[in-house]
């Protein structure tokens, strides 16, 4: 051991040499001399085996690290246990693991359903809300009437409403919020293009006047377009949020987490049952799974079916359930006239060649086949999967008609964002190969996709999860990126929007959707259903639609 000390001494000397700034050679030389002299007086011939000592030292160091680790982890568990014991019936806090994180809280200007998901209904409230069946429900307005011609909507508001900062919420705030949205062209203002004006008739009545009837209006107001902000509050929308919902944002770390605390001034019936809900964004799937396993989060949404398997097979500890949603995985073709896909036969061949069942099976089987542009939760849904069943022979003959075969393949590129993973591209390439399509897959950043495909329309085939509900209008807009221009569809869509009854609207939309699907301007790979896994003891977490509407007030966790 004395040898060991000697080595440490030496290190210390060297260190002091280093700190002694200008490292005057004389001192260095002196110490070297001194030690040499010291050694000379006290020579030792056979030292112990140095390599052995070093090895032992390393092992000892590792052992210490492991030991400390054990001690710490034991401590850690102790802490969580005591905090759990102090809770009465429900735990004081629930941690929810989500995937796509918002970069800021500015719901007026920043797109992305991550904001809708966490803020709408929890922190901000709309004039009306959306329930788990995707239907319009009362919120700030307790009731409303629509005039016969569909041009005037009168909303009757609840009484004694307040914002989380204590300000009163009345018709002035409602009218101001919507007018501001239109005037400043905030996100989703396009959806209110038909609105002429919004007025506060008295403290709890708001009247909205339209140029043309819009059967989608109420539903639109359940989203960002109908959110009510505090007219008098001044705050940084990017990092704070002041709304009237059951929760307030107490802490926001961009791309990482949001801590919600119960709003003490909340006015309504949806009072928060759990005082603190932490939203933890886990972009990495493995990290997410491990977080649920180790109890860092109590809820995980979404989780892939494959990764959910261990949880599903352990029903004593976990609940795994797939919920309905409006996510449409759209394989959009470039329908512009100069495109290689302007030939309808090729588009149809692709639709026949894709084995949707196999793709869904490879993803774990939770998703639902979708044959057209409208998902089951949206108005006008009809099962259209029968239009283009998997039929490779038919696909081949259509390609042959168009002049292509496996010997003379058609080269197409598929461009999509890396957030959807590489598997879908690989599968599509493999499925289209036998019919004579050589698919080149470009997996790019989302922002690159936005530029190349969405803005510049520079693509053959694109793949996106169009997760928004009620986005059927994109098929009636020839300037949208897939450039689908069908006058009959546009006419039917406009008639559907102008319809004054839901039944009439649904019929028109369904008719248009069928026309679109037959035309094959895209293929709908599947209707993605979100799989959610929760720890046993979690109650009240929504399974349906939870990637856009995720009311948390009812969530509780009992250990």
């Amino acid at each position, binding site marked *: 051991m004395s040898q060991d000390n000697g080595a440490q001494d030496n290190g210390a000397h060297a260190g002091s040499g280093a700190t002694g700034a200008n490292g005057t050679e004389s001192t*260095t030389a002196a110490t070297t001399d001194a030690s040499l002299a010291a050694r000379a007086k006290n020579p030792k011939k056979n*030292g112990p085996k*140095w390599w052995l000592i070093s090895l032992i030292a390393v092992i000892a160091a590792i052992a210490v690290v492991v030991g400390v680790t054990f001690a710490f982890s034991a401590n850690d568990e102790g802490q969580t246990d005591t905090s759990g014991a102090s809770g009465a019936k429900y735990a004081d806090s629930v941690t929810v693991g989500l995937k796509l994180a918002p970069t800021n809280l500015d719901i007026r200007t920043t*797109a992305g359903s991550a904001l809708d998901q966490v803020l709408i209904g929890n922190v901000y409230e709309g004039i009306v809300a959306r329930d788990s069946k995707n239907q319009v429900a009362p919120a700030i307005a307790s009731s409303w009437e629509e005039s016969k011609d569909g041009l005037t909507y009168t909303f009757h508001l609840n009484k004694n409403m307040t914002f989380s900062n204590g300000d009163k919420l009345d018709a002035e705030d409602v009218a101001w919020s919507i007018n501001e949205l239109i005037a400043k062209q905030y996100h989703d203002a396009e959806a209110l293009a038909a609105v002429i004006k919004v007025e506060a008739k008295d403290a709890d009545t708001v009247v909205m006047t339209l140029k043309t009837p819009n059967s989608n209006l109420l539903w639109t107001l359940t989203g960002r377009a109908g959110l009510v902000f505090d007219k008098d509050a001044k705050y940084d929308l990017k990092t704070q949020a002041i709304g009237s919902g059951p929760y307030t944002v107490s802490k926001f770390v961009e791309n*990482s987490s949001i801590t919600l605390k119960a709003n003490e001034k909340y006015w309504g019936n949806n009072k928060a049952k759990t005082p603190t809900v932490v939203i933890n964004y886990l972009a990495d799937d493995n990290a997410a799974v*491990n977080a649920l396993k180790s109890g860092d989060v109590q809820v995980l949404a979404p989780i892939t079916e494959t990764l959910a398997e261990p949880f599903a097979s352990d029903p004593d500890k976990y609940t795994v359930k797939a919920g309905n949603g409006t996510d449409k995985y759209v394989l959009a073709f470039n329908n512009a006239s100069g495109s290689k896909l302007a030939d309808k036969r090729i588009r149809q061949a692709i639709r026949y060649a894709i084995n949707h069942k196999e793709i869904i099976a490879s993803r774990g089987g939770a998703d639902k086949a979708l044959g057209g542009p409208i998902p089951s939760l949206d108005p006008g849904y009809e099962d259209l999967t029968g239009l283009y069943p998997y039929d490779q022979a038919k696909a081949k003959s259509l390609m042959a008609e168009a002049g292509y075969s496996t010997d003379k393949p058609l080269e197409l590129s598929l461009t999509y964002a890396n957030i959807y993973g590489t598997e879908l591209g690989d599968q599509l390439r493999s499925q289209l190969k036998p019919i004579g399509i050589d698919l080149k897959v470009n997996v790019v950043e*989302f*922002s690159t996709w936005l530029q190349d495909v969405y803005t510049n329309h520079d693509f053959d085939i694109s793949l996106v999860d169009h997760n928004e509900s009620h986005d059927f209008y994109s098929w009636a807009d020839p300037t949208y990126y897939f450039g689908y221009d069908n006058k009959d569809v546009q006419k039917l869509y406009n008639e559907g929007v102008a319809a004054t009854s839901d039944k009439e609207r649904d019929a028109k939309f369904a008719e248009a959707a069928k026309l679109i699907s037959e035309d094959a301007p895209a293929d709908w790979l599947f209707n993605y259903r979100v799989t959610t896994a929760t720890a046993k003891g979690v109650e009240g977490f929504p399974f349906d639609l939870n990637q856009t509407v995720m009311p948390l007030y009812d969530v509780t966790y009992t250990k």
Partner: protein
Amino acid sequence: MRFVIHRLALFVVALFGLSIVIFAALRILPGDVASVMAGVNASPARVAQLREQLGLNRSLVEQYGDWMGALVRGDFGTSILTGRSVTALVASRAAITFPLIIVGLLIALAIGLPLGCAAVLARSARVRALFHMMSIIGGAIPALWGGLLLILLFGRGVGLIGILPSQGFPLDGWAMPGRALLSLVLPALSVGIIVGASIMRYTRAALGGFADSGYVDMARSCGMTRTQAVLRVGLRLATPQLVSVIGLTFASMITGVMVIENLFALPGIGNGLVTDVGNRDLIAVQSELFLLAAFFLGIGLIVDVLHRVLDPRMKTATSLSEVSQ
């Protein structure tokens, strides 16, 4: 002193050059933050309006001038998306990356230095060969794989001996130092083993060089054993080189740990940079890249100067040709 001024001037010129490269490279990126903010259902008019509001339509020279002007005043700008100052963003990420690389480096030193010395001191050729192979294998492990194996061994939930948090960083950050440190153990260990192997290799090379030199012969003639001579004289002589290595290793680890940060889901500097590039938050990205470049060049500068200071032989040297003639 002239040397220091010379290096300082070089530092400034290089930084300026890099700022232009960084700025220009980022403008080639397809897509911009306006379309990211506007999203998939936005009209072109909306995107154009946002672009106008965010000042993305101004000329590049103007934008570069603004950026540079602010930089000179010490203002690194404000991230367009998050609305937070780049300084704050970088600070919160550095609070994860720096502890990670410091712990990693400590582990690396704890492994590398003694084993490197041992590799030189071992008498048996077979033992020396064993140490040599250890260092080669340690340096040949892909960081990603090493990290995965550690997760599979020790990760809570997946590991054979699941005692350590495998991924992620506590939400409270350093408010609970124990937990935070614990979540850094596995990533730091994966970094430490790999860097440790190269430090071991390096120590071996540096010390080995001196072990065969006249310095050690001289010390032995004064009565030291070979072991003592190598450790006392050789190690001291090798110190300047070791300091250089450790300094530059430390610097390169900042981006070197990107893979590890990614694997262990730690929101550090590397991860943040990738996120910001993905969002086309160019003001943030360019300042972050600039800070990184300045950091690397700065460490290079410090190491150079320190090396001079530590190694007295370098005081008067001006060029190799002088010596060789």
